[in-house]
């Protein structure tokens, strides 16, 4: 059974179930919607496709919302169940993938329950990943904890001197009292900041760094940079705003929107840039900014020569990598090795979503001929309509939170998949216990 026919099967079954529940005759329904009883019979037995228009007419006649019968609803549920079955926790359990449609048709309640649990688990995993990232890599948290420990160390040693060291000159005593006062105040302020910061962990997806603040501000429409919380974020936002405005001045919305009406240009941003006689990197930024027809779901990643992500513009369904800890297989990084070459690559996310990526790197020497050569890479990505190509590159989030067990680029074990147990062989070599 292929995936494209699956929703149709369910649609026919659901039409039949609904008709029988109303005790309506096939012939009556067929006549009412303008088709022959034989054709309705074929639809109900999943032997003929059913158009959206016909689904709407049948839904009206069967007194049920069209989405109850439509393919999309089932498609989403089937995709959700397949996604649940693809999770590493299902490894070895052998869920009957060929019976997903039957499960949903015969036990819709159980199917929904399974989907709800899988989604909740996915949400908790994301939260775990976010917390894990912050606990292990967040420079603010590490610095603050170090500050707390330093203040505690100073307080402990100084207090011990005052209590345990016997005679101390008045001058030193005053000095140590002053130090104690200073360190206790520092400790108090740092502890308050730490508690406030840890509280923010409960708000899933809350911005933790100035870059995340700026990206959230950009995603929300980039209204007023002055409203951003941190000084660093306001500075970064104004720089970004200035760059976006400069791009818009060079390539205004109207010109870009008109240019993408050409099918050839819309399908190939390199040709689009050539038609516009403008640099490809500028056109890519503008496509992600304006999101004209054909690029409605576009996102953009920008990194510097070290691979550090300097801008992330989200696209629905694309797992945005965290700055400093992203998937090494992203075509964005391949572009760094071949500046001025446009690389097109289809990728597939762990939950099966496909994206077409276009990556391109440029080099500059802002300090003149004797200055350093700076490289910047951009990756524009748009969702693929329809089935994901079989040769799409399997990407993921950071290794530590990536569920792909077999990956040639893995840097460290994942916290989301069972870890292999190393077993020592008699000859002294090691093997995994899995």
């Amino acid at each position: 059974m292929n995936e494209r026919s699956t929703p149709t099967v369910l649609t026919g079954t659901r039409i039949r179930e609904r008709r029988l529940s109303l005790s309506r005759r096939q012939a009556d329904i067929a006549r009412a919607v303008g088709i022959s009883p034989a054709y309705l019979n074929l639809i109900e037995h999943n032997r003929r496709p059913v158009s959206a228009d016909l689904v709407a007419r049948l839904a009206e006649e069967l007194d049920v919302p069209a989405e109850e019968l439509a393919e999309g609803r089932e498609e989403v549920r089937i995709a959700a169940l397949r996604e649940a079955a693809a999770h590493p926790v299902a490894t070895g359990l052998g869920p009957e993938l060929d019976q997903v449609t039957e499960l949903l048709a015969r036990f819709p309640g159980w199917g929904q329950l399974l989907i709800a649990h899988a989604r909740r688990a996915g949400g908790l995993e994301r939260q775990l990943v976010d917390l894990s990232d912050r606990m292990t890599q967040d420079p603010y948290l590490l610095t603050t904890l170090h500050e707390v420990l330093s203040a505690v160390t100073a307080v402990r040693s100084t207090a011990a001197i005052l209590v345990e060291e016997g005679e101390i000159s008045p001058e030193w005593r005053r000095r140590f009292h002053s130090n104690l006062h200073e360190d206790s105040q520092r400790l108090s302020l740092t502890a308050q900041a730490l508690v406030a910061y840890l509280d923010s962990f409960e708000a899933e997806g809350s911005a933790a760094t100035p870059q995340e603040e700026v990206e959230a501000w950009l995603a929300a429409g980039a209204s007023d940079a002055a409203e951003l919380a941190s000084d660093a974020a306001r500075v970064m936002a104004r720089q970004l705003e200035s760059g976006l405005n400069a791009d818009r001045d060079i390539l205004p919305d109207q010109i870009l929107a008109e240019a993408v009406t050409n099918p050839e240009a819309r399908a190939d941003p390199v040709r689009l840039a050539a038609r516009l006689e403008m640099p490809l990197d500028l056109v890519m930024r503008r496509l992600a900014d304006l999101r004209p027809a054909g690029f409605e779901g576009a996102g953009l990643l920008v990194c510097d020569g070290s691979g550090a992500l300097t801008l992330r513009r989200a696209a629905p369904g694309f797992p945005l990598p965290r700055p400093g800890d992203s998937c090494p297989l992203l075509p964005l990084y391949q572009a760094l090795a071949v500046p001025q070459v446009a690389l097109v690559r289809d990728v597939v996310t762990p939950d099966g979503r496909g994206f077409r990526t276009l990556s391109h790197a440029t080099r500059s020497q802002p300090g003149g001929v004797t200055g350093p050569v700076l490289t910047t890479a951009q990756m524009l990505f748009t969702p693929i309509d329809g089935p994901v190509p079989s040769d799409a590159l399997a990407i993921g989030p950071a290794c530590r939170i990536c569920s792909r067990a077999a990956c040639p680029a893995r840097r460290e074990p994942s916290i989301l998949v069972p870890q292999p147990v190393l077993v020592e062989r008699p000859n002294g070599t090691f093997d995994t216990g899995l």
Partner: protein
Amino acid sequence: MQQDILMIEDEVNIAEAVRFILSREGWQVALHADGAGAIEAIRNHRPRVLILDLMLPNRSGAEVLADLRADPDANLAATPVLMLTARGQVGDAAAQANQILSKPFDNADLRALVRRMLG
């Protein structure tokens, strides 16, 4: 001029407390507050024991220690090092340090460790 102890620590109040504690034992204690210039300070003071904080500005304690152990002056490279750390793990630095003391520490433990290292 040779000192008994050189402490490289950017937290002024910790450095002051440690110097006071160790000075009371009759040892001479010099201070340096930055990872940058640390090797020069060690070369100048030629301490019998170096107390080195792991988290230093500009150049970490681990980097300073690696530089010290790689110094062409064999006597300098062999300087006994007591590493102060605010972290539970110090990685490769632990293997190159003679002793590790975690912050916050007990003054008596610090004294005992330094006494042992000074022989």
